[in-house]
């Protein structure tokens, strides 16, 4: 990023720091930096404390590998949740998304990435061993693979299916198809094929009302 001589070096440093964040362009970085500059000192202190705290007090949950500030995390400790189902996701943000939807009452496992053969990212680079160690006893009856429906997700799901399949645990994969609000006319062949393959029976009782 080009530095203007009219910008004080300390502000320029802050702009550069914001610009390094994902999704923040040079203009947004500038706006954020000037917002911090104009904000009360307490707000700036709260921001810097929050930044340091997130680095100092978070770690990976020893069970599910999600990011947590207490180990084991709240989800792993929750007695209301079922131990018989583990939903495997690529990233911690995927856990947050599934929790928002409120559709899974079992446990989670975060892989921290996906297998990408052409980039040299293999199972050893992910939290696969930790997942397998959770499946050894008979407690877990089903593993739900909630990988992204792209090439890396397919490679990861394909690999895990082979390993977990050999362990005799039931494996399921979240359904693929059209997202809510999409247009059939723009859908690609693979999405339509998946949507057709996994079509569901329409409830007649419900439809007749």
């Amino acid at each position, binding site marked *: 990023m080009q530095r203007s001589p009219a910008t004080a070096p300390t502000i320029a440093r802050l702009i550069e720091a914001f610009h390094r964040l994902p999704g923040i362009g040079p203009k947004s970085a500038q706006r954020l930096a000037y917002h911090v500059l104009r904000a009360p000192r307490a707000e700036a202190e709260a921001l810097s404390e929050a930044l340091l705290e997130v680095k100092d007090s978070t770690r990976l949950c020893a069970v599910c590998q999600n990011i947590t500030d207490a180990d084991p995390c709240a989800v792993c400790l929750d007695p209301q949740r079922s131990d018989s189902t583990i939903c495997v996701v690529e990233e911690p943000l995927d856990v947050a998304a599934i929790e928002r939807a409120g559709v899974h009452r079992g446990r989670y496992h975060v892989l921290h990435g996906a297998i990408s053969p052409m980039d*040299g990212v293999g199972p050893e680079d992910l939290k696969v061993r930790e997942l397998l160690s959770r499946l050894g006893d008979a407690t877990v009856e089903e593993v739900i693979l909630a990988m992204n429906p792209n090439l890396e997700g397919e490679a990861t799901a394909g690999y895990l299916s082979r390993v977990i399949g050999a*362990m005799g645990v039931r494996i399921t994969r979240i359904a693929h198809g059209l997202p809510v609000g999409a247009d059939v006319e723009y859908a690609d062949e*693979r999405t339509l094929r998946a949507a057709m393959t996994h079509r569901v029976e329409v409830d007649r009782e419900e439809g007749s009302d």
Partner: protein
Amino acid sequence: MPRIRPIRTEAIVLRQRPLGDADRICVLFSPTRGRIEAVAKGVRKPLSKMSGHVEPLSRGQFGLAQGRSLFVITDAQTLDPWSPLHDDVERMTEALAMAELVDRSTDAEVSSGPLYQLLRRSLESLASTQSPAAVRRWFTLRFLDQQGYQPELDACVRCRTEVGPEGNGYSAVDGGVVCPNCHGAGHGQRLTSPVFRLLRYMRRSSAQSTAQVRVDAQASAELERHLSMSLEQALDARLRSSSFAEDLARAETIGRSAVQSAAESEREEQRRAAI
């Protein structure tokens, strides 16, 4: 600056990588323009109309406009999704190895019609075959031939005498088959008669015919060894995707040994509790 006209081209999507929050950079392989890096804007958003049309290991028709540094994909329409390559992890692994080879050996703005046709035919065969590894090995041999590293299979690469099927060696460094005399003198690795015949058959036959040849595990491993050494010699590097093929081959063993070690630790716990 002169205005560059938008381009319309058919291409195979070789790979993708994320860009920013919502975009991806796609590496396309076009018969007329070679390797093209192009930005697919917004394809990581759930309602993107383009995302399914720019998936790696598919063939499509693309509209491209010159951006500041890279091309931008303006429209994309899948011509061949090659679904079996995505649904079956074994086919996918072999397809990725082919795509990686092409990705690493082609340049931008270089017409690559023959290599494009080879990749297209090979991916088509891979989508329908029962022997994915055989199709990938056929592709590897044809790729070496096309790129100027054609392994010599008719005459000894050291003394130029014509070779028969028996007692030969294979030297990736020297570029092909070594006659029994030179092999006896310590040149090349053992090349068994069935693998020698198969290599010659692969050179004159289609991918589909090659995939129908029954090859035992030992010959398969030998052929794999010779071809991958020739490939490493040509590329001066190992394919990254080949590690995943090895991981996949070990997957079931890993699963079974995880069950065994869990059972052993349970027995150990019971033993300790009894004491």
